[in-house]
């Protein structure tokens, strides 16, 4: 098999990771996650592909006709379901974040931040560093 599908999968995953790491908008971030996921689609489909074979449906083909691997296609289908669930859940969370914080920039949203705080000093060192 050609090395091209592997290279495409690796490139997609890397590009998605770069997008996630540098994202300044939560909706963009959800999109980048989907890019990462499409890397797995490409990888799985290419692993199961056989040149010159039919789709694994034997309705109008005699049994024994060379077909692509149906297990990989089942994995991809499950993956698509997982992806849809995750995207929906993340977008719901994004809507809720926007409703409460009024922003979609992850730089302005940090867990355990004081209300109305500037984003800079997020979380004090705690008991080990009392105020001078």
């Amino acid at each position, binding site marked *: 098999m050609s090395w091209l599908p592997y290279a495409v999968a690796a490139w997609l995953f890397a590009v998605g990771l770069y997008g996630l790491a540098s994202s300044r908008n939560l909706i963009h971030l959800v999109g980048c996650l989907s890019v990462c996921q499409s890397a*797995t689609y490409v990888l799985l489909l290419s692993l199961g592909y056989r040149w010159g074979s039919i789709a694994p449906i034997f309705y109008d083909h005699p049994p024994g006709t060379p077909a692509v691997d149906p297990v*990989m296609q089942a*994995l991809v289908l499950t993956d698509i379901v*997982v992806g849809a669930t995750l995207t929906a859940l993340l977008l719901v*969370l994004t809507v809720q974040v926007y409703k409460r914080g009024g922003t979609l920039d*992850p730089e302005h949203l940090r*867990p355990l931040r004081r209300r109305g705080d500037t984003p800079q000093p997020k*979380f004090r060192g705690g008991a080990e*560093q009392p*105020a001078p």
Partner: protein
Amino acid sequence: MMASLLSAWPAAILVPLPVALPLVVCAALLASAHLLPARVPDILAALTAVACAGLCAMIALHAGDGAVDYWFGGWTPRDGVALGIGFSVDAASGWIAAFIAFLYACTFVFAWGFFGRTHGHFHILMLLFLAAMTGFCFTRDLFNLFVWFEVMSVAAFALTAYHLEESAIVGALNFTVINSLAGFLMLGGIGLLYARTETLDFAGIAAGVAHAGHDPIVAGGFCLVAAALMIKGAAVPFQFWLADAHAVAPSPVSVIFSGAMVSLGIFGLAKLTVAVFGGSAQVREAVPPLLIGLGAVSAVLGGWMALLQRHLKRMLAFSTISHAGIMLVGIGALSAGGTGGLLVYVVGHGLVKGSLFMIAGILLATRASIDEIALRGLGRGIGPVGIAMAVAGLLLAGLPVGVLDVGSRLLHGALEHTHSYALTACVIGGALTGAAVLRAAGRIFLGLGEDPGDEAGAPSEEEREKADRPLWLMLAPCCAMLIADVALPSGWISDIAPGAVAAFSRHTLTGPLNEGPASPAWTSVAGAVALASYALFRHRLPRVIVGPIRATQSAPTRLLEALHSGLIGDYVAWLAVGLAVIAGMLAFA
């Protein structure tokens, strides 16, 4: 008598029940919760969890020194080819599933009425979560493992954001993004392994991997799957999501996260490493330096970060990172003792950490704060809670009684002569996390420590949880878990452990399990008490002693704080670094 009765039971029929039962109850609740009286979901959920614990224990007893197999739809392997999907339960997996169901039962009692008018949604998600964890423990099919992994993740994401407050949602977002990436990595790894071995059954993959020799595709598959499970298991440098998620989730949910979910990541990694990749020379060479190194760093870093926190749940979350690191070291030892120690440690740590999160929940409910400084002296009216917290802190530090101690002794025995620096890291991790809990207990319940003055205001969002339950009802499950940790007979554990480890590793790891000496445990406890007392009485010590200590720790401390930035982008970058580290270790093995 007992044994003959047990063998007469058709245990193979029982195997799918601990997964099916919660799913059925879950569906029934979803259909009828709005019609049921308020307390019925609580009762139903708790009873289901107890029934699952009983079923898992029965299966585990039946498994003995072997494993009970169940093939769905009767698709048993023919001529060595496994087309069907199966469960295979050995004693260790069965007992860990039973422990998880027990943890859920305690949590349902603890959360009694906590999620009052929610049409049972909390219980539905929790039961789904329970079914996924049990399936994760039982399965013998790699893709099935992935499905349970994802079901577990989705239930966990929804539960984290349950309160829909800003910090909860942001914590859930970080958690979701990082753990989704884990799912993608795992699926990619599964694809590679399937391409090489042409099966998804553990036994088939194990045979294929052993046959493949030095193979980049097998190494790549292991790298991706291991990275996914280490993200779940919060090993450095994948640990960042954990502190955010555990700190903001409702406390009953945090009990399950810290007590079961994180350890299950490690459990899954252990199972794959020993039972599936046990025959691959390249994996066996790469695993010890990789997992022992990352585990030791996690143990110390998590403990240190725990000591720096004033938000109690965040502190406990970092202590979970530290203890997950200790468990990871157990896999890295690649010996019967290390794996046995890790399996026992999972149970002991779950019981102790779960009860600590319950104590944090009690403080949130009765004292309306989770900030250690703001709570100073406020715990005086609820003494029994303070005693429970102090006991849990000492157990966490390694007090030599109970299940957690058996686990750490087995680990110490496995590490003693071969990996002494890892043993030191484990002792330091235990001491630091124990010290953090003891310091908080002393400050909250005895009013020790410096008067905070203006610092009393918590820097984080105002938090509180509903106080509609009597104190005893919240304290009872917490004490039940601590008692279970202390009272489970260590002799019985030592008896079943060798057989269970051999069956768990599918006979790749055999040999005696040596318990280490008691001295590391006492060192750890002494260290914890000393550190906690230093933190509490520092203001009374002369400046000559305090000054240099503060000066030396401030720079690395600030660096650590800066690393845990709460930004998804940083976490993803660290994830890429971790992936590169694992791949590098495998490439040079």
